């Protein structure tokens, strides 16, 4: 079961995650210009590696990311096999599963939601690492709300994907806050956690 802090944000974040950073739709003219790799060898990061990237990006310890029932580490214990790990001595699983199990996206969402929520909570308590600009803008009208959201979007992509974001990515992440308007009772919190989840669970974050 997820910690209490997560429950109010689950539904809205799931929806946002689907909407933002989505691949170009079929009618998008940019889609026809896309390059084609001869190798097309895209590999999933193991849970261990993805979790480490997530922890580094959010300035958290790996053990803090997520704990099922408040006890089992999500990545190394509870969802170890689901996230591409092995357990030869007790379960006889010598190699990562050949195909990604259907439960993998659920496990990824749970870890990302927990980690992003924790980062948001810590930023509220301060000093902020990622969400400072929107928290400041919420506290004072001296700060520009759009600019604050853009700064958060940039920070998320830089920290979690190790690169500068494209303009359309910033736009999509900024829009997560707008998408939650009228749905969420706390747009600041849910928009921030949602934007974080979008980047943390993007194809680019999960595969290489």
């Amino acid at each position: 079961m997820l910690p209490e802090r997560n429950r109010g944000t689950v539904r809205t974040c799931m929806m946002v995650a689907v909407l933002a950073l989505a691949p170009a739709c079929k009618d998008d003219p940019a889609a026809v210009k896309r390059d084609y790799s001869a190798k097309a060898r895209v590999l999933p990061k193991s849970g261990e590696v993805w979790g480490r990237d997530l922890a580094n990006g959010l300035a958290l310890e790996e053990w803090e990311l997520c704990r099922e029932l408040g006890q089992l580490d999500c990545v190394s214990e509870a969802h170890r096999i689901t996230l591409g790990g092995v357990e030869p001595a007790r379960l006889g699983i010598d190699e990562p599963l050949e195909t990604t199990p259907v439960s993998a996206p659920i496990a990824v969402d749970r870890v990302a939601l927990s980690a992003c929520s924790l980062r948001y909570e810590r930023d509220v308590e301060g000093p902020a690492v990622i969400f400072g600009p929107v928290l400041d803008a919420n506290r004072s009208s001296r700060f520009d709300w759009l600019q604050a959201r853009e700064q958060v979007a940039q920070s998320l992509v830089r920290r979690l994907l190790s690169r500068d974001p494209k303009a359309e990515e910033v736009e999509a992440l900024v829009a997560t806050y707008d998408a939650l308007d009228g749905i969420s009772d706390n747009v600041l919190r849910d928009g921030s956690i949602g934007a974080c989840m979008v980047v943390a669970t993007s194809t680019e974050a999960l595969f290489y």
Partner: protein
Amino acid sequence: MSTVSPKLRLLAATGALGAVVAVAAVSAPGEAQPPAPDAFCEVYTDAPLCEGAEADCTVCHTTPPSLNAYGVDLAAALSPGEARPLHEDVFLEGLEPGLRAIEDLDSDDDGYLNLEEIMGGSSPSDAGSTPIALSCKDTDKSDGYDVCGYDYDYAFKKVMLDFCGRSPSMLEREDFRRSSNKGGALHDQLDVCLDSEFWRGFDGRVWNIANRKIGPQQAVKSGRDGGEIPLADYDDDFAYFVWTQTDDRDVRLVLTGQTFVSMQRTNEGTVYEEWNRSPREDADLRGYDRYQGVIEERRAGLITHRWFLMSNTMFTSIPRTTAAQAYRAFLGYDISKLEGLHPIADEPQDYDNKGVQVEACASCHSTLDPLSYPFSRYEGIGGGNAQQYSYSPRRLEGFKDVDGIRVTTTPEAGYIFGEPVADLVEWAEVAANSRAFRRSTVLDYWRLLLREDPRATERGEFNDLVDALGTDHGWSVEAMLHDLIDTEAYGAP
């Protein structure tokens, strides 16, 4: 002397398959040079899948003997009108005309003719595989990675993820991008990562390569994290395996070494340390449930470790399972899949009265039994006449009541790859110096890093690594990995 491979003869002998099936069933790479894949590559000399090796069984099969779409088309076109199953000579004579006859077909219905696929390095039986020259497209090389060639920035990110266990930071990526010597910087980074705990530590990536070779079972483990029935400690095996694969050590030690390695987890990471004690000294130091029982001159790397003998030999006189596991785990040949067969004349002798001379059994046991004899003097859990897990020249006397008096006449000498060997130490020496061992070693890392076997177009690069492991790389896995990350297969997005 017939030039037909053992596997082809077996297929003919069982009567289950026509000669057509044997086109690619004869696939075992290594010392064996089966004629059918060779014949295929004589027809398509310049095909990527024939680079440095014979054609693979998957050209015509899904899993032998089942044919894939291309194999079905070939079967229909091969020597039409001849009685089936085809005699091997008829089969080989009809192979080229048969292959030519289906060149203009599109067996997998993907829009590319079979000939285009064979010469373009893709599979004529897989609609998801299309000729590379026709499918690669990079309209703007400044918009990210170069998807049509080796890309250093991509390789750098992969090295960080594969060997260091994390993505590079933005700063690290920028530093690398600005480097004037990206090749040098890439290899410097690999050196750093090869020393990481993620790569070489307890439960790390190298450690886990050994899972299938060692087959750990916690319930019967002794020592750290021991189970309820402590029989042996596989920590010795994992530690030894990692040690042989790191710090430029000779990887052949995995089969030929006569020492052991301890593993200790510290705050600075996992520390491996070589040690050498007699069985008595080790029993005194580590206790009865952990000591290694084979005397130094009879040791042969992992295959004489206590865990290997306990979990494979167990209570058997002629330890066929042990030999088969050694053959599979370290040489890449699975006898149960008819791989690596080298039948020996007048074998199997069936010294232990198991009925293996029946024709259907003898096909494999004429290889497996002489492969197993050198293991027969090493004690398992019980049944012999000496201390468990030790070397005992008269071990088989303990089995005469169970397997009959003739079991005591089983020779210690045997054969591997058709070559006679006096004992297991010699067996291991031949094995470790074989191409099969080099291929199996490189394949372990290829699969770890690329998560699949070499593709047809990558066979040249793969075979170069296999060849170099025993020459340029000086039998060092780490030297081999430096070359592996330079391949197109690794560095082209």
